[in-house]
């Protein structure tokens, strides 16, 4: 009796998992199918039917060339790399100061960052827009870079927590050799922070790659499109050419999938660390 009950529970467990996998993958798989179909084939076949030719890359070519996706990838890459470098420097620097030195105002700075995390970003865009305008950064990559560069409390926490485990004896022995605080930061602390930096870069990088709001609002110029905004632009002119749109969607998901498969462990840990704080 117990055995029977146990067996049916196991069946139920796997059944629900399969349903879950189906729900997670079905919307994606049909996009893969459609991306390989010719427009005639697309119109005449069921959405669930696989393409007749798995090597028909015409849609990908059209999407990539006519959708100016190369520009999108290039702009996203420039913004991402610059913002990440800036963001990591800014984040580790402030964390170094806050963790290694006890000074007046330290508590105030911490609470300033903490409270800022509560401000919902979407709501303040109205004025942020005005500031970006005043800095003459509207319709330049500078706007997105600057907005992504500001560090947040999560990054600071992760860096500080990591630095707690870097012994101050290292600093002290370097000071005996006459190293300046700057040298200590640049030569000892920063390199030792590498795992935390990589975690943060992955989380932030995914966020920047996927962000739609900032480029949409601050860089409407077509030559400044990022992958998000160039994909969004497919909605108009390609309206009914779903096979092309699906290919464009795939072009954007493939890099994500590659990164995900390669860095799975880092990504899981990063998201967990980031959210629980």
């Amino acid at each position, binding site marked *: 009796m117990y055995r029977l009950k146990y067996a049916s529970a196991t069946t139920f467990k796997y059944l629900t998992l399969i349903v879950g996998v189906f729900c997670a993958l*079905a919307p994606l798989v049909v996009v893969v199918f459609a991306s390989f179909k010719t427009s005639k084939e697309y119109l005449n076949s069921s959405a669930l039917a696989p393409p007749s030719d798995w090597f028909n890359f015409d849609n990908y070519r059209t999407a990539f060339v006519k959708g100016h996706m190369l520009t999108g990838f290039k702009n996203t890459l420039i913004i991402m790399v610059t913002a990440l470098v800036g963001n990591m420097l800014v984040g580790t620097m402030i964390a170094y100061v806050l963790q290694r030195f006890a000074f007046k105002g330290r508590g105030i700075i911490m609470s300033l960052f903490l409270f800022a995390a509560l401000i919902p970003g*979407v*709501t303040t865009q109205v004025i942020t827009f005005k500031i970006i305008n005043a800095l003459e950064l509207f319709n330049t990559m500078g706007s997105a870079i600057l907005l992504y560069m500001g560090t947040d409390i999560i990054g600071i926490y992760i860096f500080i927590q990591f630095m707690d485990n870097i012994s101050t004896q290292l600093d002290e022995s370097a000071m005996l050799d006459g190293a300046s605080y700057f040298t200590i930061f640049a030569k000892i602390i920063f390199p030792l922070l590498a795992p935390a930096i990589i975690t943060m870069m992955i989380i932030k990088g995914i966020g920047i790659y996927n962000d739609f709001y900032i480029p949409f609002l601050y860089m409407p110029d077509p030559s400044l499109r990022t992958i*998000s905004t160039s994909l969004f632009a497919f909605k108009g002119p390609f309206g009914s050419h779903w096979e092309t749109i699906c290919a464009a969607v795939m072009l954007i998901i493939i890099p994500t999938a590659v990164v995900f498969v390669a860095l799975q462990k880092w990504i899981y840990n990063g998201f967990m660390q980031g959210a629980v704080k």
Partner: protein
Amino acid sequence: MLANLSYRAQRVVIIVSFSLIPILLLITFGYVPVLGMFRYAFTDWNGLSPDYNWVGFDNFRTIFTDKKYYEGFINSIYYFAGSFVQLAIALYFATILSFAVRGRNFFKGVLFFPSMINSVAVGLIFLFFFRPEGTLDTILGFFGITNPPKWLLNPDIINVSLVGASIWRYLGFNFILLLGAISSVPSDLYEAAEIDGANRWHQFKYIILPSIRRIVAITLILSISGSVAPFEIPYIMTGGSNGSNTFVITTVKTTFSYSKYGLGSAMAVVLFLIVILVTAIQKLVIKEEK
């Protein structure tokens, strides 16, 4: 250069120079916008002209009396309900995958992957999914449902469709947080319970749920405050048409398309106060847990 200074002087130099840029960024893009938002909320500023008039609470009165503006909050109810559905599904999968399951990593990866996908891509994937005679309709056809509703055209259903897409997108994120929390429950607790004859449901109810209450509260409150301000998925998919407006979409349109910066700021203030309130409740709940 720095090395020639005494450590006392260096200390000052390093503290000032290392905190200058981060704090400047924080103030410029964190605090100045908030102050500005509260200021312009009481004006009729149009975003361009140098002068504007003080209008007192007029903007707020408009928001709460004109349906065009408060309509978004009514739709938030759908997203609010959706956040419970999402939590329940995430909790279920996190629980069964925290025990030995064949292909555990595969299931974990597949359930999580959607939350890594670009939001515009998610929007287009679901525009495709919900198309008339598209994926969903074809699947339903297998079950004999031949006359499905117009998922994105019918105002009675559109919000349910959009919430469905949002759940698909954010479920994996909740799931992975809960999974992490459940795996930190010491396994000898389960063994002890099994000896006492507890079944899986008892284990879930008396061991897992109490140990992860804190993270469940966090996830729930995160998705509740998210349900106040859904933007990307509905904006990308429908642009707020057919009755799918959300409060943030209205705010963005009021401000940037109709240049009503004063009114837009007032809407932002309303949203801001709601999110702060929800966060304050969160802090209270979590403190009590401790």
